[in-house]
């Protein structure tokens, strides 16, 4: 038997969805195969994965991953592989800590909360943009692949943050823990709703969902804003058009007199800025304080967002769908750890298996395989 790989003349309508679904199923099967090999019950693992898809606790991850997935989509569309989301996300928290705990700490220098929150968002955006801009400079002017540079910058960001938490940012009210102080309540962006959590399971789940939505309202607004911005960027903004052209044919840009280097700088910077904005809002909505050795405690959104963006096949419409899948899987990884079915490797294996099957089956969208006997 022979297999022949042929380029499709037209791409069937629902192929993107089918390809994503196949890669997901295959990825989960690969993961299950590994878990069986190490002697875990596949049924127990599957139940935990399935449960996470209907759990209200995925709300926070869902919003963050929509925002970051869109941010990465912008650079990926330009074939600029920004793998440095982690670094851009965490480096953006530095000005947030500085502003809320030191410069405008309500204990000794109170300031209007909306102004401080705005400043945190603005400076976080700038920091994220700056971090991505460094990698863009390497790519544009030194012709060095952005993948290793953005990855290395992730480590640099972790260590800078660690240095600050160990030194100048070290908290005074931390009960012996090595971390920053808690960001004052007036700067936090959560809305607390108290519901009775009574009734049948569906009612309880809906009440729980309402509580989560209210608590993470800022992340919800952020996800919507970044999604709309990304839509506008690709639909109505000239730079968005240039970005897409850079992804498919950079020499065409040159031919029409557009500086390829400027597009690289702009695209990466915008991508980093949106990630920075997400990092700063996440600081005020969820983190509240930053622990020492952040690399050991990170949620890994920078890497998960790559999965979101790739699973969407770089299609903005699919970003919420893939963000939902990835946030459910991340929570499945945590649920498996809680259920005593493994540790951090569960999340790594699940992400790795799905990314791998996705990367391999992805070609079936543009190509077909024919069997000859």
């Amino acid at each position, binding site marked *: 038997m022979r297999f022949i790989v*042929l380029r499709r003349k037209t791409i069937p309508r629902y192929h993107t969805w089918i390809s994503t679904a196949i890669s997901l199923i295959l990825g989960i099967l690969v993961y299950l195969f590994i878990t069986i090999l190490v002697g875990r019950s596949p049924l127990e693992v599957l139940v935990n994965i399935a449960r996470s898809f209907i759990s209200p606790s995925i709300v926070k991850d869902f919003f963050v991953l929509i925002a970051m997935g869109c941010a990465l989509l912008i650079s990926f569309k330009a074939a600029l592989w920004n793998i440095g989301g982690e670094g851009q996300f965490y480096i953006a928290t530095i000005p947030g800590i500085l502003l809320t705990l030191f410069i405008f700490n309500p204990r000794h220098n109170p300031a209007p909360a909306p102004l401080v929150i705005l400043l945190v968002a603005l400076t976080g955006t700038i920091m994220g943009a700056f971090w991505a801009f460094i990698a863009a400079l390497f790519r544009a002017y030194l012709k060095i692949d952005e993948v290793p540079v953005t990855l*290395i910058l992730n*480590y640099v960001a972790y*260590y800078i943050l660690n*240095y600050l938490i160990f030194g100048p940012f070290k908290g005074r009210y931390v009960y012996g823990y090595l971390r920053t102080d808690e960001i004052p309540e007036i700067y936090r962006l959560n809305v607390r709703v108290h519901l009775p959590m009574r009734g049948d399971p569906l009612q309880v789940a809906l009440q729980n969902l309402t509580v989560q939505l209210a608590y993470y309202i800022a992340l919800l607004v952020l996800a919507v804003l970044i999604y709309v911005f990304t839509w506008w960027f690709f639909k109505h903004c000239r730079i968005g058009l240039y970005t897409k052209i850079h992804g498919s044919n950079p020499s065409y840009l040159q031919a029409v007199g557009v500086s390829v280097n400027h597009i690289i700088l702009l695209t990466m910077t915008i991508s980093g800025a949106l990630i920075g904005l997400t990092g700063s809002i996440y600081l005020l909505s969820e983190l509240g304080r930053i622990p020492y050795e952040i690399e050991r405690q990170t949620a890994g959104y920078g*890497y998960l967002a790559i999965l979101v963006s790739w699973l969407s096949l770089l299609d903005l419409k699919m970003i919420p769908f893939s963000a939902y899948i990835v946030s459910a899987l991340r929570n499945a990884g945590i649920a498996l750890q809680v259920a005593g079915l493994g540790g951090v490797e569960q999340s*790594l294996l699940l992400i790795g298996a799905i990314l791998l099957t996705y990367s391999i089956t*992805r070609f079936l969208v543009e190509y077909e395989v024919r069997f000859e006997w």
Partner: protein
Amino acid sequence: MVIETTIILRLTAAFTTMYLVALGHSIFEKSGILNLAIDGVFFLSTGVTTAVVVPLTWLLTARGLSLVLSTTLAALTAGLATAIIGIFMAWTLTKLPISHGAVGLSLMFLGYGLGIIAGYEVRLRVGSIRPYTYPDSLGIYLAILAITVLIGLLTYFFIFKTALGTAIRACGENPHVALALGASVLKTRLIAGLLGFFIMGVGASFFVLLWQKYWDIKTYLLGYGWLAFTIALAAGRHPIVLIPLAFMFGGLVEFSITLQARLGLQADLAKMLPFIAALILMIIYGSTKLRRIFEPPGSLGKVFYKEERTI
């Protein structure tokens, strides 16, 4: 005198690890396949080494055989385990029109996960891995150093002076032309994958067996694979040029703690130094003639697709 010996031992171990990983990576990338799996493969090798060396040492020392034999066999086993990934990457990325970057990054995550699965149980059982590693003997370290340099020289000869080496370079520059000239792109890349990842795996196993004499699941957060990636990039994937760079980086990583004490640096700043050095090295590489001299293979990371492909 004791301090000098310790310095030699640690520097030798750091160099050996970094050099072999960068060398294996270079052989593979010379064939035109972008290897972003390097950091995951590095960690996977350390996990497999931990899993293998302990039972092997129990087995062999009970039969009166030496610790050096079990550690060496563990290193070779780790090399074989990672070679499977090399073969998988070479086959998949040559036969199917798929992204090198995506496959590499996904294998990186899988490498982290599988590495933890491989090493965790054994590490938990024995507590410390040190009794199962190479003894702190100058003779053993220098012998390993000599073998490492010899492997480097042989690789140079293999890549630049043999027909197979020329085929590897041709596949890296332009696989279509290499095919037209009669080279089998698949076979060539499979050999590069097998050899490159085997050397990479052995090199990474020395992280546990020779250099740090320590393993823990959080080793995957160190990012040393990416440092080896940078070394290979800046040395133009050249086996001889890699030697001074691996020596420099190995030294920098190893002595960042000494530097920390001497310069009064905080630990996290010291840990950051090799990464900053990697970025500086990239700037030097990208902005000088080095870039033209050590240009990457012309088809590195490019999808190899022939119309009407038969697999």
